[in-house]
């Protein structure tokens, strides 16, 4: 007696209702709250991503879930409605129509569209900036250091807080592309399947050793032969993977040396900034003092220039003296509200040229950099010729 229903049923019958005809809308035999059914609004572009199964929902139980495509992150907002939204499944969904002939008490000659649930609202998506600061937090728990090489390999691995790509995907609310960009921005490197940042001391000794070897062997800073470097640095006790990483952090691979070993050129700015950070670690100092010490540290053939330190130092004029102090943009949160709070705590008033290096990396979907300033700062300009000054709102 099953499957002899000659009439259209369900969503199809409603959607294809012919002129001059009618259909009964009734509660489904399985009508209920059905909290497991949710409505998600997507635009056509996102729909494509969903249909190709390229999206996922990410977040820990205590976090607000986000919706991620390969390249973007979306916040999920529940929007309730006071209207009655009657949901009618298609007859093709057997789970909702199995026993329908037996259970339906309505007249069988009449077409019926059964309502499975009344939807109290829908989920909407809006693009947001990835919540990437957590990545820094996680990777800072256990930076790669000399201890990693001294320790008995397998023994301590379990106790270490280290994260593989899959661990990070599960813990950080960002799309794959954004997570990759985040790892790159932090100069993280994958070592034995775990993403690590390398502690500064280790990076410093690696770079020092590289520069030392360069003098000994009379290498050119503009054409370092990868194979040769690997061999020499290995003898000094540095693992190949980390030497590779060192080259990536402080240099650029040169093209056009096919078939032969790769050549690398050390980047003047990145190398110089590294040594400035070493000097600035001592705290607040006079500008001349910084420049003197800094110049002594940088390798022969490179030239230190104060402009390199945009987003690295704050300068302060005290009488005739200029004092500087390390203040790194890369150590500030990427969330704009948190970023501005810290900036204005540091300094209540900012001139544009000082502020700009500390906010240019901020991006908020749907908000221009002017919009960002408007939202988080108060701009004052005593007269049209004067420099604009930004303070907290």
């Amino acid at each position, binding site marked *: 007696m099953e499957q002899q229903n000659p009439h259209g049923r369900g*969503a199809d019958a409603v959607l294809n209702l012919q002129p001059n005809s009618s259909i009964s809308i009734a509660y489904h035999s399985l*009508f209920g709250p059905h909290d497991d059914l949710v409505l998600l*609004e997507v635009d056509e572009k996102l729909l494509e991503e969903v249909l190709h199964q390229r999206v996922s929902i990410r977040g820990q139980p205590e976090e607000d879930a986000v919706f991620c495509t390969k390249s973007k992150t979306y916040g999920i907002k529940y929007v309730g409605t006071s209207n009655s939204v009657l*949901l009618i499944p298609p007859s093709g969904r057997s789970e909702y129509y199995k026993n329908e002939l037996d259970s339906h008490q309505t007249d069988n000659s009449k077409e019926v*569209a059964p309502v499975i649930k009344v939807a109290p609202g829908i989920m909407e998506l809006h693009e947001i900036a990835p919540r990437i600061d957590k990545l820094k937090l996680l990777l800072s728990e256990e930076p790669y250091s000399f201890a990693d090489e001294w320790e008995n390999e397998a023994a301590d691995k379990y106790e270490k807080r280290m994260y593989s790509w899959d661990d990070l995907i599960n813990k950080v609310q960002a799309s794959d592309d954004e997570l990759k960009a985040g790892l790159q921005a932090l100069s993280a490197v994958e070592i034995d399947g775990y993403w690590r940042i390398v502690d500064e001391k280790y990076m410093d000794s690696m770079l020092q050793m590289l520069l030392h070897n360069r003098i000994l062997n009379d290498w050119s800073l503009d054409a370092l032969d990868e194979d040769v470097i690997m061999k020499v640095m290995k003898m000094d006790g540095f693992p190949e993977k980390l030497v590779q990483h060192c080259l990536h952090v402080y240099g650029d691979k040169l093209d056009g040396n096919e078939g032969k070993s790769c050549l690398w050129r050390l980047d003047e700015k990145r190398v110089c900034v590294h040594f400035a950070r070493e000097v600035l670690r001592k705290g607040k100092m006079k500008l001349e003092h910084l420049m003197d010490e800094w110049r002594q540290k940088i390798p022969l053939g490179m030239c230190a220039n104060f402009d390199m330190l945009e987003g690295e130092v704050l300068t302060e004029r005290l009488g005739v003296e200029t004092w500087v102090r390390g203040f790194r943009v890369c150590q500030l949160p990427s969330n704009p509200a948190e970023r501005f709070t810290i900036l204005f705590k540091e300094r209540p008033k900012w001139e544009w040229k000082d502020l700009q290096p500390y906010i240019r990396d901020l991006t908020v979907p749907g908000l221009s950099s002017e919009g960002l300033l408007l939202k988080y700062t108060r701009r004052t300009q005593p007269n049209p010729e004067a420099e604009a000054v930004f303070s907290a709102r």
Partner: protein
Amino acid sequence: MQIKLKCNCGETKCLEWALVELQGVVEPQSTFQDRIQNLEIGILCRPSAQEMYTFTVGYHELTGSKVSLKKPLLVLKKTRSVDEDQSSDIKSGNAELEVIGIIRQRILFKTRPKALISSAMFNPTMVFASSEPEPLVKERSRASGSAVKGQTT
């Protein structure tokens, strides 16, 4: 954690669900409150070739039309894999989300209901309670529904 959004219907055949939306609330008469399964809510009628519809609920008739959604709605179903041990039902580690349908249009009734006077054809098991704006209408529709309560039994 991450939940992959599954979609088995693929690009071509995502089954379309129907959505009928009306202002306010429909409620069954109190005698039906506990057994509303299979109960008729109303009759949806398309009187002409146009995409205009009427929906008759109890003694009220609504007039509306079929409109395409600017953005489609996906119907998602949450499921939980059963292979996890019983103790961990708070931890939704194995939750899954699957796309089981799509909604591209809705039949929207946004006008106030019109009362149908003295028609014995309709089965007054349902009352239409408009939730906004003034409570007067709600009162009235309840009253008309309860007036015919005797007939239904």
